[in-house]
């Protein structure tokens, strides 16, 4: 092919992709613009118009969400649940996966099968019994729900850790053991450092799930005590008070999206790499 033709083709493709990526950015921008309108000025007809002097509501919607509706505490609970569950999943599941790959017994293979099986099972299958069990065992608080997340999230984490674990050479661990390390020491001093990229991968996938999960915390958390996560809060704007509140919904959406985009902007490379690595091994 001629070079000019090739170059023109490339430019055309770039232009097409640029146009397409506008479609990926626009919905968020539109919500952003509308979130500055007054509640009563938000209509479906006028959604495409930026706020004018008449419809402009300043930061009113944001004030409502932050001060009156407790976005701050929902953010705190989301952060607490995500952080504790994430640490628990990463530590416990990597230990469990190491044991499963290094010990070849019928029951360790059986356990592996059970974990993989649990990945496919839809949440609706256990939703009623799980929330009942969580309430009975007192696991319905933001600081205890991580046990439930460890149990329900173990499938994916163990499966992925096992996939990577197989490629770690056995000799390193054996050398450590011969040098007098116990299994626990060997794991934390030798295996875990080798596993670092995998920890990042699994951590990213689990965080994407934990931070955004709606139904599990909605059913499990003790809502009468006022515990709620960000997705629960946003859902409550739509049905909680008998009317649809568009202004608060949009401000809530933006307050939810902004931290995500900030984190993404910083760790973009790791996140995309992590997802790709996770999928290839999976």
């Amino acid at each position, binding site marked *: 092919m001629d070079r000019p033709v090739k170059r023109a083709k490339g430019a055309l*493709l*770039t232009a097409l992709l*640029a146009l397409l*990526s506008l479609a990926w*950015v626009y*919905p968020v921008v*539109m*919500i952003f613009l509308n979130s500055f309108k007054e509640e009563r000025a938000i209509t*479906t*007809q006028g*959604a*495409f118009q930026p706020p004018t002097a008449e419809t402009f509501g300043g930061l009113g919607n944001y004030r409502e969400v932050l001060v009156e509706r407790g976005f701050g505490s929902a953010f705190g609970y989301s952060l607490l649940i995500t952080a504790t569950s994430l640490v628990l999943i990463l530590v416990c599941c990597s*230990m*469990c996966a190491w*044991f499963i790959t*290094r010990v070849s017994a019928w029951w360790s293979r059986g356990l592996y099968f059970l974990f993989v099986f*649990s990945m*496919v*099972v*839809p*949440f*609706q*299958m*256990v*939703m*009623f*019994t*799980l929330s009942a*069990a969580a309430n009975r*065992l007192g*696991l319905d608080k933001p600081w205890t729900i991580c046990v*439930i*997340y*460890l*149990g*329900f999230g*173990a499938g994916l984490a*163990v499966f992925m850790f096992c996939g990577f674990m197989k490629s770690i050479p*056995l000799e390193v*661990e054996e050398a450590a053991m011969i040098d007098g390390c116990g*299994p*626990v020491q060997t794991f934390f001093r030798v295996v875990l450092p080798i596993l670092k990229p995998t920890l990042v991968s699994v951590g990213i996938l689990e965080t994407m799930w934990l931070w*955004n*999960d*709606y139904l599990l915390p909605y059913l499990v958390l003790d809502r009468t005590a006022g515990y709620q996560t960000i*997705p629960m809060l*946003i*859902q409550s704007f739509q049905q909680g008070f008998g009317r649809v509140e568009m202004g608060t*919904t949009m401000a809530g*959406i933006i307050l*939810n*999206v902004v931290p995500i*985009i900030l984190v*993404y902007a910083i760790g*973009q490379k790791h*996140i*995309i790499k992590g*997802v790709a690595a996770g*999928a*290839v091994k999976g």
Partner: protein
Amino acid sequence: MEKTLRKFWPVFVLPTLLAFVIGFAWPFVQGLWLSFCRFTTIGRASFNGLSNYLYALTEGEFLHSFWFTAIFTVVSTLAINICALAIALCLTRKLRGTNLFRSVFFMPNLIGGIVLGYIWKILLNAVLTLTGRPLLALNATYGFWGLVILMCWQQIGYMMIIYIAGLQAIPGDYLEAAQIDGAGSWQTFWRVKLPNLMPSVTICLFLSLTNGFKLFDQNLALTQGDPGHQTEMLSLNIYNTFYGRSGGQWKGYGQAKAVLFCALVIVISLVQLRATRSKEVQQ
């Protein structure tokens, strides 16, 4: 080493195993048992055989949501994977701005289903109003396509990442050899790239099929099953059976539906994995 490690199972396996029993295994077994019972709480259950299943299999709404989910999953899986593969092919051609495009397309995956659902509800309703059509909540056809658009918007980026990784793993020699043999780009794609990409295709099809069948958050936020349960997918139908109705019989029906749903998802995953695995080639 294995012998010493074995003795340490309470340290390595027990915490995860305990949580797994509490968070999955026990509720699963209990759920299986309760699907044969009439119950309002777990303590108050009485065995009533297969009648929950008989009801679930004859309920019109449940069957409707099965077909709705099945058609939605097929359409969205095809759309997502074709678009994602096309974009991945464009982005592996060393164009300018590749990294930026990749980041932008992947972005929606970080936003949760509930939030995505409301973003698109607002946008689509605005478009529908401006063109003088009924809102999403009033027309099942628009609701269906709204869900498809939403899922494409969210998932294309994710599948694209997997396809890009797959394309980059194809050895350069293969492509060079194809070029020397005089293969055009169309032929190179069908004869060289696609066969070597089959592991990625397996994963992407698996993910988009199971995501489609299990879809809940987006469905709840975008259409809530309106109008009149017509856009209610299986997960939402089960949820509404459990929590949306009062009466002693409904929880049993819901649990029976959940067992059927679970079996369906497992069978579909197994069939799909077997079908595409057999088309993979060894490098």
